[in-house]
Each structure stands twice: as structure tokens, then as C-alpha cells.
């Protein structure tokens, strides 16, 4: 079962999630051996938010966070911002039912999570972002496809690996009903 969060908690989760997305996306780039590509850990965090707070929160946090990154940096680039939102949305929708908050994290969930991340990344970076670039900005298709594919690969790997790690730790911080007692 999934916890339902109150609307107020959702608003706060969107706001603070966007702030987190912004900070990680803006200041924390881990360089990789491939030139000009860095590991974007903010998508791993967005996936975690999608699992814990649902698709709507993740979609809006991703969208706002990315708009803020762009508005203070590269200028608004709608197609990629939408793609961030869609990524959160899809992960959230595919994992609507989960019991992470109850501390359950098994192989089955890990598999579902990985699959959801792959699918969501595919939709975001192989479909929405390049299609948007071609439609809104008339960029040459093969260029945006290559960019999208690169983003797909790096984001999928980091979101899956880091996301699973974070969720497995998080699940262990959650306590089952009536499980705590003082030990001697």
C-alpha cells in the first residue's frame, strides 16, 4: 500500500524537492571520463521522491527545479524542462504502489524500480526532449537524438544505481509497527 500524503505535505515536498533538485543539479556535477558529460545525481533523487511522494510531486518538483536551474543559467529550454517533469511523473506512476515507507525493500521492488527508471528515462530523453527540441526549436533531429541518447544512458545508470542505494538505506530507517523496544 502507499501512504497518502496530505495536500500540504505535497506542496512542501514539491517546494523542497525542487530546491534539492536545483542545488544538486546546479552545484554537484561529478565529472566522468567522457568529456562534457557529468553524472546528474538530481535524477536519482527525483526518482526517490517519485517513489515516496508520488507522481504529481515528482513531476512538479522536477519541472520547477529544472526551470530554476535554467532561469539562472542557460536560459529557459522548455523541452528539457518538460522532460524532467515527465521523468518524475512516469517513475511515480509506474511505482504508485510500494511499501518503502513501511520499510519493505525486496528484490521484486528493486527490479520494478529499475524497470521504471529505464522506461521513464526512455520516455523523457528519447521521446519528449528530442521531440520538443525538433518541434519548438527546429533543431536538427540527429543532433538532438544523439544528445538524448547520451542523457538516457548516463541518467538511467545513475538513477538506477544511486536511487536503489538510497532507497535501500531509507527503507532500513523506516520502522515496522511496534518494533522498537529498549534493549539491555
Amino acid at each position, binding site marked *: 500500500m502507499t501512504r497518502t500524503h496530505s495536500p500540504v505535505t505535497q506542496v512542501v515536498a514539491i517546494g523542497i524537492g525542487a530546491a534539492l533538485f536545483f542545488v544538486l543539479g546546479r552545484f554537484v556535477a561529478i565529472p566522468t571520463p567522457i568529456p562534457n558529460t557529468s553524472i546528474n545525481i538530481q535524477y536519482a533523487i527525483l526518482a526517490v521522491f517519485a517513489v515516496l511522494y508520488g507522481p504529481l510531486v515528482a513531476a512538479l518538483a522536477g519541472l520547477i527545479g529544472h526551470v530554476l536551474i535554467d532561469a539562472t543559467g542557460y536560459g529557459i529550454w522548455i523541452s528539457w524542462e518538460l522532460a524532467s517533469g515527465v521523468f518524475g511523473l512516469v517513475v511515480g506512476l509506474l511505482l504508485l504502489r510500494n511499501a518503502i515507507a513501511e520499510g519493505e525493500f525486496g528484490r521484486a521492488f528493486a527490479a520494478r524500480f529499475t524497470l521504471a527508471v529505464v522506461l521513464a528515462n526512455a520516455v523523457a530523453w528519447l521521446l519528449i526532449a528530442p521531440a520538443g527540441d525538433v518541434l519548438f526549436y527546429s533543431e536538427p533531429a540527429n543532433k538532438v537524438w544523439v544528445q538524448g541518447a547520451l542523457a538516457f544512458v548516463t541518467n538511467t545508470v545513475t538513477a538506477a544505481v544511486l536511487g536503489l542505494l538510497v532507497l535501500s538505506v531509507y527503507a*532500513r530507517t523506516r*520502522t*515496522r509497527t*511496534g518494533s*522498537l523496544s*529498549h*534493549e539491555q
Partner: protein
Amino acid sequence: MTTAPPPPLIELSGYSFQYRAQSAPTLHDIDLVVRRGEKVLIVGASGSGKSTLLSAINGLIPHHHRGTASGTLRVGGKDPAEVPLVETARVAGTVLQDSNSQFVGLTVAEDIAFSLENQQVPSAEMPARIERAAALAGIGDRLADSPHDLSGGQKQRVAVAGVLVDDVEVLLLDEPLANLDPASGRAAIELIDDLHRDHSRTILLVEHRLEDVLHRDVDRIVLMDGGRIVADAPPAQLLASGLLERHGIRPPLHVAALRYAGAPVRAEQRPARSADMDLDEDQIAAVRRWVRDGGDAAAAAADGAGGADGVGERAPALELEQLRCEIPVGPERSTLALAEVSARIARGEMLGVLGSNGAGKSTLARVICGFERATGGRLRIGGVDAHGWSLTERGERVGFVLQEPGQMISQPQVTEEIALGLRARGLGREESEGRTAAVLEICGLRPFRSWPVSALSHGQRKRVTIASVLALEPEVLILDEPTAGQDFAHYTEFMDFLRQVNTAGTTVVLITHDMHLALEYTERVLVLSGGRLLADEHPAVVLTDPGLAARADLVTTGLHELARRCGITEGHTLVRRFVAADRAAREVAP
């Protein structure tokens, strides 16, 4: 004066609550009545359920924290569990334990307006009401500032103003003094008292700093232990009863001193404040005798503490030379957080750092550990210039316990958190386990060792961070406000342990607002103000210099007042005698 008592505003009877995750209730069978116009203080050991009790009253239980409750609870005649949170909030305004998370606006004015905006008060009506609430809370001159420009004490005031703007009847305050310097703490208590008296608000206050709260009158003190109310009495009666000590709470120092002197204060002597307590001749004589006779013991105790003699000749652990630190806060702007601080800290010394909120104490520690870059001057660690050392390299020599526990805890479980640093240092399993077990014991965390950190109270979390740094056994230990939010029983336990490691050769630096802690455990303190070093002296000298104490927002403890009342000119002799007696008492009954 036989008017009927005012009707109860808050009423709990037979109330129990068990968090969903717990196997036993956190609150047992609570009976408590708070009437209109009362001012009630709740004290109790860390983890005794004080915050939980406030959460039940303001409705966060069950609206935010899940669990099972039984018994009855009425706030303004209604059960908070059955009405929406806001309805309870209209009667009882809460200032949470962490005032930073309560500050949701982008500026002070906006934050105070928050509740008005939610009630859809027209924009034009807001400024007047904001100004009134801000003036009441004493923050009227900072309306346009953002939260980052405010000190801890000022944030607390904003939180109070944000609640007052709504005309609530009851104010629930959870540890409002936790991070305030002594002078701001007093100011906060005065503010709360004004609200109580001049504006007839009912006040329910949770606080560990009993002596500071009693700076102004309270009607009753409720003492909690293990989720139960063990006493509910007027302050005079409770202080005289000796119950506080039995439940791990330190009574005001002058009350303890009179007990040690063998002339305990009685309830009718109004023992709440040392300045206006009635002392009789016998008590004064007893105190004088006690101080005189204990001269030797006091001297011995002084030698035990840090061993000040010969410090000058010992090898230096830390040397600061004209250390300077500017922190950039915007384009072309920076604040000067440290200005030309010079000091020499010898190996094996126990040193205190005192000063107002925002004086630069934490910044000093952060510069030493490399968290903040010094923009001038020189720092030597163990005689070697630390310029260019990485954080990890510095961390191997200097252990640092941060002010905010949440910034250090990264593991889901208490034991894992402690083992984390040990593993990164490449220690063997056996060694790690031994050290982990030892620090768990010292910090009173053994019963919680396999609990998730999320189920610990605020004070318990802080102890986890202390334990995880103690386990690393660094040469120099810096602790930022180790005793904030801690109860007496727990803090003496790890402070005594700190003294033990200190005698074994570890250098200890304590950043604190607690004057008595500095007096008891250190022989030397650095006093900072506005980033500058005001003094480098014995703590007693600092306290007896009124000009210095005022500039650093320090306040003398009740012991000095007691000494004055008893005609002891050298206030410090009484303090020394007290510390010695305190220590002796602890050794007898650990």
C-alpha cells in the same frame, strides 16, 4: 480572593500515547489541567516525552504522527484528534523545537503574515497587524530581512510573532532557549513573561534550562520522567522537594549549593531566584562554613580539572595566529566572521569558547577543521602549518561535533553511524566493535543501539553524533554546544567521560553558552564577540568582569548571587566549592 478558578483550557486525563513504531507507550496515563492565564513549565529528561506531550495538545498527534492514543484530551473544549489541525491552532499557537523549519516566508514580514494570508485577510489590512505582532515579539525593526540574516534568537522571535498575529490564547513553546546565549535567553524569558502578564496569554513551556526560565515567575512546574508526570507543583515546592535531582534534572545552582551545605532551602523561602530568596541566618552561616571548610577539596578539584599548571610549557595542539575569515554572502559582499584571532592551545588542555549568538564561535571551529577557508593568518595543528591540508587530513587529528546533529548522521541505525567513521579509517572489526560498545555506554545510547535514528528524540540524536566522533579518538576534540537540549544526568555522564579522555591527553575544546559548564570543566576560556577575541582568561575572571560579561552577553549564575547574599566576597570560592561537592556527590551515587 475566593473566586472560582478559571475554566480549564487544556485538559488531559488518563491520556496515553504509543507511536506506531514503538512497542510500548511513550506517554502513560497523563493527567494535566492548564487553566486560562496560567504559565506552566514542563521539565524532564531527554526522551521523557515532553515534545510528544506538546504534539498531542496541538494536534500534530494524530494528524502528523501516527500511533494509538487512549484517555481524554480537550483543548478549548474540543478533542484535537477530532477537529482539523487549524481549529486547534486557533486556540493554541505552537513554536516548534526547531524554529528554522517554522520560518517559511522569504522575509520576516512575510513569515509573520503567513497565517493571515491563509485566512485570506485582504493585503491592505495585513501590514498593521504584522507590525503589532512584530512589536510585541520585539522584532519590529527587522521586517524586511531574510531568514539567513537573522541569528537564532531573532528567528525565535519571528516564530513567536507569527503565532501572536493570530490572537491565540495559549502559547506552546518547545525548548525556546536551546541555542540562545545567556542574555538572549533572559530576553526571551522576559518576552514570554510580558506576553503572559500584560497580554494574558496562557503559556506552556518545555525547557531544559530551568534556572534561566525561573528568571521570571512560573505558576507551576510539571516534571516528567519516562512518559509519566511525576510531579506537578508550584516551583517553590518542587525545588525544595529534591524530586528534580532524583529524576535527572539539575535544580537551580543556588538550590543545589544550599543542599550541599547541609541547609536545604524550604518551599516558603521562595527559592526560585537566588536574588529574592529568603535566607535565614543559619543557612548563611552554613554556606560560609561549607565554603571555608571545603577549601582543600576545592583546590584538589581545581587541579583535577584540566590541570592548568604547566600548560604554557606543554607542546601546542593548536596555534592560531591572526586568524581571519570572511564569508561571501553575495556579489561583492562578505561578512567578517573572524577577525585576527590569536591563541595557543596546549596539548591536553580543556578549553571553553564563549560568546553571543553570531559571535563566530562555530566559525572558529569550522576554520580549524577546514570547513571554512581562513582568509588570513596562520593555523598550526600539532605544531605543523595546516595550510593546504584536506578536510580528511585535518579530520584525522581534529574531531568536530557539529551544532546540528542532522548534518552528521548518515546511517539508518545508531550502531552503523558510529561504525561508519571507524570503517573509513580502516580499523579492524574487533577494535571497531569494542570502541562502539564503549561509546554507546558512555553516551547513554545502549538501549537504543539498534534503533533507527528517525525514532530518537532531539537530545538523543545529538548524543549519537558525539559518540560517533568520540569513537574516532582524535587528538583534538571540538564540541559545538554539546549540552544544548541535554538533561543533567546525560550530560554529566559524557562530560565526565570527556574529562577522562582529556586527562589521558586529548585536547578538548568546548563551545558553549552554559557558563556553569565552562566554570566546572575548563580552566581557560576564549571569549568572542563580533568575530574578535575579547578575552583569553579563566572563566571566573570573565564572569566577574561586568564590562566583559555584558559585551559577550554572558550572565552570572545563581551561585554568584548566593555568594553575595552570604557575604562571601570572592564569589569564585563558592563556585569551586560547589564543583567539588558536585563531583563528590556524583562519585558516591553514579
